[in-house]
């Protein structure tokens, strides 16, 4: 075995730092015991560095590997999948630390760190994550750089500075590559993050779910409208429709319950019969949504979506909401055109649909059912009945984020006893009351409203904007939206919970919590605007955006133009960098004195006089003068001139140089042709 390679101390420090930075954001996604492994490795490394412990022996290493593999299997129960693979990578990286014997190992570790920095972007692509990634990258560059700095430890700040310079030199070229490198699209299917907690509105709704969700914090999505933003009470972002109720929990209708064609119309499929039952009227409203990862498949839109993203992965469900084939693991941008004025399934419903939308579990909430039948009997029309129920809410109920817990007959208890609830209580009990009275109704879950950011002109919809409301089917009019919460707390419709009950929905340590302070408010808006712009410009830069941009830049894309653009752009970028590098290491400008001296050197070389390395002009002249006394005087004169200009900084007239050089020439010629004393004279006469 070759001698152990000792990584420079500063390099080791950088490496551990870079690795630490790269691992930290991944730890949230991975089992906790990895932190323990990390701590152990760091501790061992420290002890080894201080000379207290040896590097682990073969058996200990084997044991550590076995324990880690067992731990991975115990945590995940499988090895394929993104999280287990990332965890395995981190394990390998950490354990490799204990086995750094050769320079090759150190390099491998350094490269793996680069890869790890990339892996963290799989889990988060926010602006913060990107900035953090740059910091990681800087550190990783330092570690690689300091491996090549044998005396790096003497200049601690130097690696950082040089790495920063490299970073700055590289970024322009990277941007160019980013703009022009073709995006190929997925080559093969890859495992997606699966362990991540699903966020946002879920596909089940039980009492208490939404109030919990409203406190989970964070942004759900951001919307940019092509034209004007509709009023807040129109911003019902529809995500899910619940038709199935088991007494406590609402769920979506089963797929097989649909009997009139496929339950989802994917883009590119032929239009099924049910598609004809939705008709939009009036102005169209186009907007584009950037959805934060939900790890779910549904998308949000305003009813009624008439056109939407062209990709084959997008589809319209039977209940007129948008879907995507794969769960959304990364920020997703999609555009939709909606018509807010619409008629949805106005035609009489078939028997199976009526059954589906009137379904109630047997044996639950008897008091409510009784009351519903009574009120329905008293009311002349559906409309009057709906108004009666809403009146009941309006008279007695309070809207609260902290509703009391409910038992088995949740609707009964809520309607007639506790009378305090959040949107899901109102929506759920309202729909039960409707169904009990024979009016088809369903619960719709999504978000309501949004916060306007004037810096970039878009809406931010937060998790605390999550909302549930009802849709009621009225013969001849179809599905009509009714929001029972509006009856109880009309201010909720106008205002988001974030403004209305800030302290309840925002975390203690967050900008949103202190939004009443003007400075924090503007900072919060600005930060979100940056984040939004970051996504729009960078994360969302896909194949279409690329071809649009190149089209605009080059006025039509052709291979020749592209190649020229790359060559010219790359040449310009590299040229600037080279100019900077050259300027930093530019050689001394050659002065007249040096130029003349070189000329004299060339003359003397013909006679075999060569100046030794490190010999000053004066020494050189002295050495020659000892042997060739004829040259002594002219050389002395020249050296005096040289020293005057070069060292004292006094100016020497061009005339003087010419004279000095001439006298040296004359002396040299006399040496060569001692028999021609009158030569100079004759020449001047001619």
């Amino acid at each position, binding site marked *: 075995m070759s001698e152990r390679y000792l990584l420079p101390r500063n390099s080791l420090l950088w490496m551990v730092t870079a690795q630490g930075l790269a691992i930290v954001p991944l730890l949230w996604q991975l089992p906790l015991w990895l932190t323990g492994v990390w701590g152990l490795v760091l501790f061992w490394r420290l002890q080894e560095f201080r000379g207290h412990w040896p590097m682990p022996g073969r058996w200990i290493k084997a044991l550590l590997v076995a324990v880690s593999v067992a731990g991975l299997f115990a945590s995940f129960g499988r090895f394929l999948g993104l999280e287990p693979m990332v965890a395995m990578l981190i394990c390998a990286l950490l354990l490799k630390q204990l086995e750094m014997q050769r320079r090759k190992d150190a390099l491998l570790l350094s490269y793996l760190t680069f890869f790890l920095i990339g892996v963290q972007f799989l889990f988060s692509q926010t602006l913060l994550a990107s900035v953090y990634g740059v910091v990681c990258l800087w550190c990783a560059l330092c570690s*690689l750089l300091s*491996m*090549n700095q044998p005396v790096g430890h003497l200049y601690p700040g130097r690696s950082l500075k040089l790495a920063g310079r490299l970073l700055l030199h590289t970024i322009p070229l990277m941007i160019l*590559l980013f703009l022009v490198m073709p995006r190929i699209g997925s080559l093969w299917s890859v495992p997606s993050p699966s362990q991540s907690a699903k966020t946002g509105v879920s596909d089940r709704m039980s009492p208490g779910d939404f109030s919990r969700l409203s406190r989970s914090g964070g942004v759900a999505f951001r919307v940019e409208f092509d034209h004007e933003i509709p009023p807040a009470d129109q911003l019902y972002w529809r995500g899910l429709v619940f038709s199935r109720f088991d007494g406590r929990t609402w769920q979506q209708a089963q797929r097989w319950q649909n009997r009139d064609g496929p339950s989802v119309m994917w883009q590119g499929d032929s239009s099924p019969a049910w598609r004809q039952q939705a008709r939009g009227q009036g102005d169209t409203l186009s907007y584009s949504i950037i959805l934060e990862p939900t790890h779910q498949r549904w998308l949000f839109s305003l009813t009624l979506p008439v056109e939407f993203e062209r990709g084959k992965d997008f589809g319209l469900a039977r209940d007129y909401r948008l879907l995507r084939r794969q769960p959304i693991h990364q920020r997703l941008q999609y555009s939709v055109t909606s018509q807010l004025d619409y008629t949805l399934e106005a035609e009489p419903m078939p028997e199976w649909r009526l059954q589906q939308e009137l379904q109630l579990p047997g044996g639950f909430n008897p008091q409510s059912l009784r009351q519903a039948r009574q009120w329905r009997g008293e009311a002349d029309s559906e409309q009057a009945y709906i108004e009666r129920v809403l009146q009941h809410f309006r008279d007695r109920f309070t809207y609260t984020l902290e509703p009391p817990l409910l038992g088995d007959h949740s609707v009964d208890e809520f309607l007639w006893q506790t009378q305090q609830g959040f949107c899901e209580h109102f929506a759920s009990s309202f729909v039960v009351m409707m169904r009990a009275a024979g009016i088809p109704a369903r619960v719709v879950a999504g978000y309501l409203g949004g916060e306007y950011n004037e810096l970039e002109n878009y809406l931010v919809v937060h998790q605390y904007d999550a909302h549930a409301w009802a849709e009621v089917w009225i013969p001849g009019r179809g599905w009509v939206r009714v929001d029972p919460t509006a009856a109880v707390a009309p201010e909720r419709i106008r205002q988001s919970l974030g403004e209305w009950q800030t302290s309840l929905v925002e975390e203690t340590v967050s900008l949103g919590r202190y939004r009443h302070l003007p400075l924090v408010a503007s900072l919060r808006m600005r930060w979100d605007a940056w984040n939004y712009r970051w996504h729009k410009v960078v994360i969302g*830069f896909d194949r279409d955006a690329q071809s649009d941009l190149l089209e605009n830049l080059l006025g039509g894309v052709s291979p020749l133009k592209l190649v020229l653009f790359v060559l010219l752009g790359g040449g310009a970028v590299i040229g600037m960098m080279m100019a900077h590098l050259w300027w930093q*290491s530019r050689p*001394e400008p050659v002065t007249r004195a040096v130029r003349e001296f070189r000329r004299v050197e060339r003359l003397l070389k013909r006679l075999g006089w060569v100046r030794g390395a490190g010999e000053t002009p004066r020494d050189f002249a002295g050495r020659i003068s000892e042997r060739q006394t004829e040259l002594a005087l002219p050389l002395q004169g020249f050296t005096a001139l040289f020293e005057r200009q070069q060292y004292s900084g006094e100016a020497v007239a061009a005339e003087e140089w010419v004279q000095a050089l001439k006298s040296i020439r004359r002396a040299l010629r006399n040496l060569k042709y001692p028999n021609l004393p009158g030569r100079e004279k004759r020449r001047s006469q001619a």
Partner: protein
Amino acid sequence: MPSKAGAGFLSVVVLLWLTGTNYENNLILGLAFFLTALFVVCIYHTFFNMSGLLIEAIKSSPCFVGDDGELEMQLSSPSALKRPVARENIQLSFAADQAITVDLIEHSTVTVKLFVKTLERGWYQPPRLKVESHFPLGIVRCWSWLVIDQPILVYPKPIAGGELPVVPAAGQDGERLADPGAEDFDGFKRYQLGASPRHIAWKHYARGQGLFTKEYSSYREPRVWLDWDALEGLGQESRLSRLCYWALKLSATQQPYGLRLPGVSVAPSTGLEHKQRVLKALALFGRGAGRGAGKDTGV
């Protein structure tokens, strides 16, 4: 040129690009592009780390055949700026296994000694010097070959053996030299002004014989001529080796010695300079090469 480490680096880039493409993740793609661009940038950084560096051979020290000849090299990076242009991790090597690493960070000039194995007597022209740098990231290698115009004088290998190679001289065995510091009493001499009072023959003066001083002298060893012809029957190199051995031996004593080679002779003398003259004559015997002067070689 990408180094071996650079190939590993590029494979990381490919891996990242595949990941970024498959996940359609622009940030990972961006990272892959960053590393690609970094590679390109490194080519220039590595080049500029070496470009403009001035490497000069200042002097060489002689050695014996088979020993390591010593070359003193001066690395400098002339700069128009106040602070020196930093150049880091520059490796100078004649052979792959023994490289010397030089860093110019705070000083603009550094002198290093290089050693090179010599095989033959005479003026030894060192092999081409490889100047190499992997700085900054070790993923790109920039190198250059330098011809060093600073030959090293290589003396014959001293080989012990044989008698002192002298040819008995025809004349007297030695000369008697007057030497005021010597111990053997030689005779009297009439006093001259300035003579040491310790040497005055006070006994003679007391007898009224006048002022005399005592004269001392020593016998010098006979002058030694190390002679080519005394080593009949040996080959040229063996003769030179033996002469070299005795020259070293004799110069360790204070005895004057001379050297006679066919066509070359060095008059007897002592001292370091004389020793070098003798050794040089031995080194260059039969090799009519003149000494070239040190020359600047820029990279």
